[in-house]
């Protein structure tokens, strides 16, 4: 597979020559080559004065998930230097609201940690799910002096079901032969607000534990059998840090930044894997054989992947297949294409896992399905 950077350059370069609306291309470092290569033979772009004020600015709005908000804002910021004529507003109002805004067609793009349900799909025929980054849920705990605790999904489910109430329970001890588990009560902490994090976590528990699937199920908020609710990641983290014997779950990024102890979870291959950017990426790759064409998929408990971390999920940008305004659609796809191919290092810098190459390939295929007046807008550079 070609270096994504080259692809972006070529793609955006084509755009320059064909439409000539990339202003200030020379200012944008990555387009310098493309600008000179194509600029000379294209009268339009040759006449563009880089210092001329932008008159035809394109404004795009999106709303949705809070989880990818930091990387979206960074991408939007950086993209400004590539395409100063495109203004993108992203509001992190939560996945649920983002989906509603998208369905009601008040935004140019939606964003969500949970894919549209079949019922919601019926209301927006031809909604596209474009995955951007992969999120993971880290299980964190507070047991001083006990590093590297390992758990299987079944044991974790039993703890959150209230069946395991003590850390010295034989089921926990059995999985941690290297530790002498202490006689200490377990306090489980959950997210009280509706959260994609909770959705991924409960989806995983429901997959590995029949009891969980039956008694609790999967959702952005569920009826917890036991435990204490913390408000958002910060609330869960505060509760865990303050309470000896507690266990909770937070976004991986959060635990990486704060530096909390995390549980290594057993994956389908029987390996105990701690959450890292690499093990999360491997989880997405581990689902390749089962990926549906529309990428509406949960990637928890992946069937493949030696070192795949089992509690992770995609986050999506939601697009309509049939759009009306050509300039806006092109701008939107330019941004998404740039973010996916050029923005991956920015994502890693912020502790997000970028899409594995195979998934990226399918994603770019989805972008090709966007049409304006029956005409295809985006074609992948070969």
């Amino acid at each position, binding site marked *: 597979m070609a270096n994504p950077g080259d692809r972006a350059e070529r793609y955006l370069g084509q755009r320059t020559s064909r439409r000539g609306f990339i202003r200030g291309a020379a200012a944008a470092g990555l387009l310098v080559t493309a600008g000179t290569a194509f600029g000379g033979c294209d009268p339009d772009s040759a006449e563009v004065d880089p210092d001329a004020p932008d008159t035809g600015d394109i404004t795009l709005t999106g709303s949705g998930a809070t989880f990818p908000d930091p990387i979206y804002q960074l991408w939007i910021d950086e993209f400004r230097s590539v395409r100063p004529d495109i203004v993108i507003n992203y509001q992190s109002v939560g996945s649920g609201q983002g989906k509603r805004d998208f369905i009601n067609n008040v935004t140019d793009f939606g964003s969500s940690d949970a894919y549209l349900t079949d019922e919601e799909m019926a209301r927006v025929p031809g909604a596209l799910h474009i995955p951007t980054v992969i999120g993971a849920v880290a299980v964190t705990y507070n047991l001083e002096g006990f590093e590297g605790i390992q758990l299987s999904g079944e044991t974790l489910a039993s703890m959150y079901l209230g069946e395991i109430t003590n850390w010295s329970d034989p089921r926990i001890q059995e999985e941690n032969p290297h530790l002498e588990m202490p006689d200490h009560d377990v306090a489980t902490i959950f997210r*009280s607000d509706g959260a994609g994090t909770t959705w991924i976590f409960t989806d995983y528990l429901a997959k590995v534990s029949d009891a969980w699937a039956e008694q609790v199920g999967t959702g952005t*908020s*569920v009826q917890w059998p036991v435990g*204490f*609710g913390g*408000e958002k990641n910060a*609330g869960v983290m505060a*509760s865990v840090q303050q309470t000896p014997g*507690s266990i909770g779950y937070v976004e991986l990024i959060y635990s990486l930044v704060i530096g909390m102890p995390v549980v290594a979870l057993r994956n389908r291959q029987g390996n105990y894997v701690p959450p890292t950017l690499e093990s999360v990426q491997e989880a997405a790759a581990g689902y390749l054989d089962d990926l549906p064409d529309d990428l509406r998929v949960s990637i928890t408990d992946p069937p493949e992947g030696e070192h795949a971390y089992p509690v992770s999920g995609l986050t999506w940008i939601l697009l309509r297949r049939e759009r009306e305004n050509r300039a806006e659609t092109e701008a939107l796809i330019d941004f998404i294409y740039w973010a996916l191919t050029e923005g991956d290092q920015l994502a890693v810098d912020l502790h997000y896992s970028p899409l594995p190459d195979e998934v990226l390939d399918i994603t770019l295929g989805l972008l090709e399905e966007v049409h304006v007046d029956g005409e295809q807008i985006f074609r992948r550079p070969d």
Partner: protein
Amino acid sequence: MALTDPFARSRGLRLRQRLQHGDLIFWLVALGFALLVVALLLIIVAVTWDGSREARETFGIVGFITSTDWNPVTGEFGALPAIYGTVVSSMIALVLAAPPAIMIGVFLSDLCPARLRAPLSLMVELLAAIPSVVYGMWGVFVLIPFYRTFIASPISNAVGDQIPIFEGPVAVGRGLLVAGIILAIMILPTIAAVSRDVLTVVPTHQKEAMLALGATRWEVIRHAQLPYARAGIVGGMMLGLGRALGETMAALMVIGNMPRIETSLFQPATTAAAQIASQLPTTESDLHASSLILMALVLFLITLAANSIARLLVWNVSRSSGGR
């Protein structure tokens, strides 16, 4: 209620005369704003009524407020745990806050050296001005660790087995009691400030009459001032209760957010306002959102009930108070 019309004098005058000094215009403008309040109230009721239609049709209002389920996955929603948590945490707050607050009021109005009065009053008012999220954070990072180690755990270990409301395990420490304590601190300045104000306006001759009879300072306060100010103090308490019932952020951060009714005050619970704030942005289904809006309507009814009880109390108290 008999309206005393300050412009009664101008009745019977011709329109131009009444307009002459702008009285009528002023009256109309003022009336407009007063009606605006009524309109706002009606709009809020109408919007919540309309938004909660799906939940009302599914569960019925009675079914909703008597059910203890809150399961977004299966779509079963009931408000009883939230109502319980709201009422109990607010009652705890009122019980804890009222005595010290009234005492603060007495001190500021009567016992305080003149030099201390202004700064102390300012402090009390400052306490009321702290945003509730700051109280919540203080609760999470300061009060809860202290409360768990030095209050909840010792009590639960000592008498938890005999007294069900103090039953353990305390674990995280979040629960009804600590929420009640935070709310108590938040409503303390309200009650204290109102108490001070109503005690300050007790007529001097009341006190002087008592003193002339040879009463001590305590007796003056006990028999002349407090009875006279009783209606106002009760009003202040109800103002505080109203704030506690509707308090969202601080309760949300410390109560543990578990929609369940437990006997023990150390166990996590939830309040109506906290549940709405926490879950409305990311609802699982339209029915979930609708149920939260119905919860808002229920909360509205609770505060309405509290206010009505307050009116009755104030009316009763002022009828029977001796001071007049």
